[in-house]
């Protein structure tokens, strides 16, 4: 592995304290272009907090962020966008009651001249959104006027990713993009993540699903109680080891034994 090249983003000793509780505690990470970094960890481990730091929603309590080696605070979502960091929250960035062609372009509307006025070019917006969605394999969408809320969870997720890619994101940050999706739709989203990576984007993926993580991940970081517990490249850990780590370091086998015991003890009392 050539760890010599400069990462696009380096997170250095970042902590984030919420009223005395350290949601992030001295976390350091490197995010490289053309790689998928999977952020793993139990509920409340601090994954979303880390993502919000990258998205400009939170300022770190301590520690710094570097972009291509230079120290660079990310002080607002606008800042993050300017640096090419595009975050897709669960169902976020889309507006259920807006037409897809409107939602896709919020904040970045294409315009055309109309006499002395500059107007929103809805026709162009519709064409682009249909083309981009088709390119991402969502061929069912042929009309940009469809309301976002009428799309399936996967289609919405894809539209949010398509938006980020279309507007030239260099870093794609995805918080549990497959959490609410069925098998087929998850597979589709994962395929699009691979596409983005192959185009040279850096991808940060938060997921609870070990299979999904192992399918697309190049590098993995595990957070436990706001601290980085482990950090490894593809192939350096077995599936069982990763699962253990995600359960907060507690051996999954122990947990399973415990569960078996509980359900075994519970049976006699419910049988009559």
């Amino acid at each position, binding site marked *: 592995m050539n760890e010599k090249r400069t990462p696009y983003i380096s997170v250095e000793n970042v902590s984030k304290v919420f009223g005395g509780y350290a949601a992030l505690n001295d976390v350091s990470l490197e995010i490289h272009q053309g790689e998928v970094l999977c952020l793993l960890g139990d509920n409340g481990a601090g994954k979303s907090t880390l993502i*919000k730091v990258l998205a400009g*929603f939170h300022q770190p309590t301590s520690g710094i962020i570097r972009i291509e080696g230079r120290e660079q605070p990310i002080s607002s979502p606008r800042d993050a966008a300017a640096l090419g960091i595009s975050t897709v929250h669960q169902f976020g960035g889309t507006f*259920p009651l807006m037409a897809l062609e409107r939602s896709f372009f*919020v904040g*970045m509307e294409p315009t055309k001249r*109309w006499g002395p006025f500059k107007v929103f070019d809805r026709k162009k917006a519709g064409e682009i959104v249909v083309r981009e969605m088709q390119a991402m394999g969502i061929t069912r969408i042929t*009309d940009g006027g469809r309301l976002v809320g009428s799309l*399936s969870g996967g289609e919405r997720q894809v539209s949010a990713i398509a938006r980020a890619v279309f507007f030239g994101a260099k870093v794609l940050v995805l918080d549990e993009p497959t959490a609410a999706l*069925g098998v*087929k739709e998850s597979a589709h989203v994962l395929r699009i993540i691979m596409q983005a990576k192959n185009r040279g984007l850096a991808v940060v993926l938060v997921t609870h699903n070990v299979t999904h993580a192992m399918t697309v991940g190049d590098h993995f970081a595990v957070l436990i109680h706001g601290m980085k517990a482990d950090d490894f490249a593809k192939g350096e850990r077995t599936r069982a080891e990763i699962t253990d780590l995600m359960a907060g370091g507690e051996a999954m086998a122990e947990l399973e034994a415990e569960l078996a015991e509980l359900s075994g003890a519970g049976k006699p009392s419910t049988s009559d």
Partner: protein
Amino acid sequence: MLDLKSMTRRPEFAAFVGTLFVFIFFAYFGWPTFVTSLVIAGWLNVAAELGLIALPVALVMIAGHLDLSVGSLLAAGAMTYAIITGYFGLPDIIGLPAGLAVGTFFGFLNGLIVTKTKLSSFIVTLSMLFGLRGLVFGVTRLTTSTVLVSVEVSEMVRSTFGGRIYKTFENAIVLWVIMAIVVSWILYKTIYGNWIFALGGDETAARAAGVPTDRVTIWLFMGSGFGAALLGVTQVALFGSAQVSAGQSYVFYSIIAVVVGGVLLTGGYGSPVGVIFGTMTFAIVSQGIYSTGWDSDWASLILGLLLLVAVLSNNTFRRLALSATDKAETPKAKPKPNQAPSEFTVTKEATNE
């Protein structure tokens, strides 16, 4: 081909049905008085006046806010105009713009307080409604020692803001048409329209997408302040006097017109065309009642019921609009219990600290 199904999914469709219904209703029970030009002018005048407030208020509501202060904004605009011209004797050319500016300024204040304090616009504008009413009363009494100020309206203002066409149709109808064109233009044709929908849909996501949400909110409150003051000065120009208690009823009238016009109370959805129908429905009911020979109290009952039906049908239409248009759907997404759908709520709290 006329696509009936997609037409019924448009936000203004239910509003149109409502207007048609009350029109036929009163044409039937109020026949033949209801179709005389005097009665038509009666409800058109009411609609035009209300429309000047309802249209900008609709934008505020599509953006997910409420403006309950329009009653006092109207009085403030009207009184400013009346005191400057009627009491101090300055020309209309100073008094009228000053009235508009005062309404717009207090609208600006609404927006500023809402965006800076993150309090709900319901409370902020309710405070403004009462606070500003007190201020208007106090200032008017202190300067003029009355609560009613008469104005000698100049010919120029009478022929534009005040006055009537053929002695029946108020010039306010022309202002209403202009207001409707401007508001529709903003919402449909400009990029700001997209920002307004996004703001009402999900403020945090809109901000994340780069929409200057605070600035848009402030502009929208300035718009409803301007609309209220515009009606204020128009009424002064029409009746030749201003009263401190004027306009309070428009607080609820405007909300009724907007909601009956198909705008969702939660924001993010609605159309100016729908609001025009909603405004007409309100006006037809409140004026049409006089041509039936019934007691006018019944109008309130009808309006109350209409409002309830409108809210119910708005929800139904929203569901219809959201239902996928094609039947062949892949397996439905199952929400996972431990995922975090409240992601944005957390963010919101966090950004407030």
